[in-house]
C-alpha cells in the first residue's frame, strides 16, 4: 500500500489528497493535513474521489462509428480517421470550420497543448471551454 499525493479533481479549491494505491488500484482517498487548502479534511466528493477511477463504466478502448454504431478500434485507426476528418474539413471549409473545446478538468499542460494544436496545427482560434458554465 502506497500513498500518492495529488490534487483533488473536483472543485476549484484544490485540496491536497493522498490516493491510496494497492496493487495498481486506487482504494482510498485521504486528506493532507499539512496542505494549505485541505488542512486535514475533504468534502464528501473528495473523500470518495477514488470511487469513479475503476468504475465499470470507464471507456476502455477507442471507438469509431461504423454503420451508426460505436465500435472498438485500434488507436491508430481512431487517430487516423480523426486527423483525416479534421484535415478534410480544413481543406473544404477553411480552418474556422473546426471548433475545439478544451477542458477545465484537464491539466494546464494538456490545455496548453490543445490550444497550441488548435492555433498552430489547425490554424484557428476557435477554442474555448466551460469557464462560464
Amino acid at each position: 500500500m502506497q500513498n500518492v499525493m495529488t490534487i483533488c479533481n473536483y472543485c476549484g479549491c484544490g485540496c491536497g489528497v493522498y490516493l491510496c494505491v494497492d496493487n495498481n488500484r486506487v482504494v482510498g482517498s485521504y486528506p493532507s493535513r499539512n496542505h494549505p487548502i485541505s488542512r486535514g479534511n475533504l468534502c464528501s466528493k473528495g473523500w470518495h474521489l477514488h470511487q469513479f477511477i475503476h468504475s465499470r463504466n470507464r471507456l476502455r478502448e477507442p471507438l469509431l462509428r461504423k454503420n451508426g454504431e460505436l465500435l472498438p478500434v485500434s488507436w491508430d485507426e481512431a487517430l487516423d480517421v480523426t486527423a483525416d476528418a479534421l484535415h478534410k474539413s480544413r481543406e473544404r471549409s477553411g480552418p474556422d470550420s473546426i471548433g475545439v473545446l478544451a477542458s477545465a478538468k484537464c491539466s494546464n499542460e494538456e490545455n496548453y497543448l490543445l490550444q497550441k494544436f488548435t492555433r498552430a496545427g489547425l490554424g484557428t482560434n476557435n477554442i474555448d471551454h466551460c469557464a462560464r458554465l
Partner: protein
Amino acid sequence: MTNSIEELGSADVLLVTGSNTTETHPQIGRNILEAVDGGAKLIVIDPRRTDLAKEAHIHLNLRPGTDIALINCMMRIILDEDLADDLFISMRTENFIPLRDYLHRLDLDELSATTGIELKKIHEAACIYARSSKSVICYCLGVTQHSCGTDNVQAVANLAMLTGNVEKKHSGVDPLRGQNNVQGACDMAALPAVLPGYQAITDSAIRDRFQAVWKREIPAVPGLSLTEMTHSGKDGAIRAMFIMGENPLISDPHLSRVQETFENLDFLAVSDIFLTETAQHAHVVFPAASFAEKRGTITNSERRVQLCRQAIPPIANCRPDSEIIMELGKRLDCPGMDFESSDEIMEEISLLTPIYGGMHYDRLEQSHGLQWPCWNRDHEGTEFLHKYYFTRGKGQFTITRHQEPAERPDRTYPYTLVTGRGSYHHYHTATMTRNSKRLVREYPEALLEINAQDAKTLQLQDGEKVELLSRRGKVRITITITDRVQPGTVFSSFHFFEVPINQLTTSVMDPKSKCPEFKVCSVNLQKVKHD
C-alpha cells in the same frame, strides 16, 4: 481570486454574493465560517436561503437579476453616510465623478423596491461592509451567469474600490472558480481571444513571440466562444469539432439548439473518461486516462499551480489527453508535438507565459504549489493581487445601470427558474460523481426546489413529479418543498442527464463575456396527471 483562500479566515467582513459556498467550495466555506466564528460579520447576497445564508448576519435575498440595483443602492448609502475611502479613490482610481453623480440621481426607495429587499437591511449591510478595512467580497456564477454579468462584476468592483477594500491582505474581490482547473484552462488560453497568460491574440508582437517557438503562423482574429460554436446550428460555420473532457450536450444552455448543431456536424471526436451524452454523438471516441493515471499541473481558484502526481498507470487501453493531442498534431504536421513528459511541456509554458515564468516542476514538487504571477525562479509567487497597482494601472470606475433579465415572468410562464450546482454530492454533469456509489446514494435524483407557498397554490406534494416548461422545452422533475427558495422562484441543477434542465434555459448571453443567462428564465409548472 485576488486573495488567498487562507486570508478569508482572518477578514473582518465577508460579503458573499451569488455563491453557495459551503456546498460548491467547501474549503472556502470553511474559511468563511472560521472567520464568522472568530467574530467577523457575514453578508450574503443570494435569492436562495443557502446554508451559508443561514449563518449570515444579514441575508439580502434579492429578486433574481437585480444585483446591480442592490450594489448601486449600497454605494449610494455609503456615499450618503460618508463612508467612501476618498484617499484611495483619488490615489488609485479614475472616473469616479461620473459614477458619484449617477448614484446621487438614484432613488433609494425605488432601488430597494426593485430588489425586493427592505431599505433598512441594505443600509445596515452597506455600513457594515464600508466601515471595515478588512472587507472581502467573494462572488461566483450567481453574479456572472446573467445577460448583464459583466456589469454585475463591474458593480462589485465599484463597491470594493469605493471603500478601498482592495489591494491588501484580507480585502479584495474574489471570483470563486468552479472546476478544479478552470483557472488553469483560462491561464493556458483555452479561450478564443488570448494566448497563454492572457496575452492578446490581436497583438502582433505577442503573436511573433509564440510563432518563433511554435514555428507556425497564428491567426490574428479571435475565434468563436463555446456557445457560439455549440449554437452554430444546422448550417452553421462549425462543421467539425474536437472535444476534450466536456459535455456540452448537458451543460450548455438551450439544449435543443446544441443538439441541432451536433446532429449536423460533419465530424465529431470526443476524448473523455466516460461515454458522456456528448461522446454518444461522436464519430470517434478516445478513452482518456483519468487524473490518477497521469502527471500534470492544475491551478486552483487562488491561482495556486499544483502538481498532480500519477498514482497508477492508465487503466485498460486508455491514454492521457496529452498523448492523444500530440498524436493528432503529428498526423496534421503540427510542429512541436513531441514532448516526452508534462515536465517538458511546462518548460515551454514558462518560457512563453510571463505569469508562469517561475513555474518549474522541481519547485512544484518541493512545495504545495506556487501562486501566479510567479515571474521567475527566484520569485516566491503572489498571495494577493493588485498590491501597489491594478493590472491596467489605475482602477476604473464605470457606471452600471440596472437592467431587467432577458426574460421576465408573465402569465404563461409565471415562475423564475434559477439553475446552478444543486448538490454538495455532485459535480457539473455528474459524469464522475454518478459513478461513485456513495455520492449517488446521497443524492440519487434531480430535484426542483420550490417554496411551500407556491406548492400550496399549485397543490403539489413533496416528492411529487411535475412538468417544468419554458418557451424552449420541458422536463419532468421531482419537487422538494423548501424554504431555500422564495415564492415565485424555483431552483434546479443540471447534474442529471435524465432531467436535462438546460432544455429550458435561454441562450441569451452577456454581450461581452459570452456567459449565458443560466440564472434567470421564465417557467411554468404543471402537475403530472397519473396514468
